[in-house]
């Protein structure tokens, strides 16, 4: 099945694109998509322990089953707000 992969911040820089279309074997979950992507871009691998994922614009677990056309987003640790860290 075809899925759309969205990447942000450092992950986007590693792959060179914020949006990728990829074919993955069925059945697939977000983890399978990540693993395929990390094989293609090995520099991604180290981020797995700290990233979150979202499926179709909702936070999701990595074992969420995917269906054709789903959008899977991988999110590095977030840093919104005004300061720089938790203490700010």
């Amino acid at each position, binding site marked *: 099945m075809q899925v759309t992969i969205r990447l942000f911040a450092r992950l986007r820089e590693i792959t060179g694109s914020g949006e990728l279309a990829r074919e993955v074997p069925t059945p697939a979950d977000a983890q399978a998509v990540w693993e395929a992507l990390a094989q293609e871009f090995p520099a991604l691998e180290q981020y797995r322990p700290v990233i979150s994922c979202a499926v179709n614009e909702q936070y999701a677990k990595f074992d969420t089953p995917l269906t054709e056309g789903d959008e899977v987003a991988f999110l590095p*640790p*977030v840093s*919104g707000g005004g300061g*720089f860290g938790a203490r700010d």
Partner: protein
Amino acid sequence: MTLEPLDLVQTAQAVTSPDCGAVATFVGVVRDHNQGRPVRSLDYECYEPLAVKSLERIAAEAAVEWPGARLAIAHRVGSLQIGDASVVIAAASPHRADAFAACRYAIERVKQIVPIWKHEHFDGGETWIEGATADPDDEAAKRIARERARK
């Protein structure tokens, strides 16, 4: 979520109502230093649809925690300079204690779960600021936000 400069008064007006005797506000501003080095500017990037949903979720959480409190949160993205407001929060409530608490809770949760990323430019380089692994269902993170709100 907006690329435009934030408007504190407009944000506060969005939550003001006749039954609210208090509106607490918070403005997060781009600071000129981080970890002992001067910062030149910041770029903010977001995953907009999920960011908006996350902000709505924070407002809903606060409404459960402090019944009667209402939140408005505006976050700017794009290229910001030192002194620019990156986030504006207004919390309205019948009484001030809940308004202050809901406002503090909101900024803590923004930092925990809203998919926004800061790219820092400093003299001689640039780096992504990586804060919290976002998990909106993480009860420990919620508890920390609640504790800070009630300080």
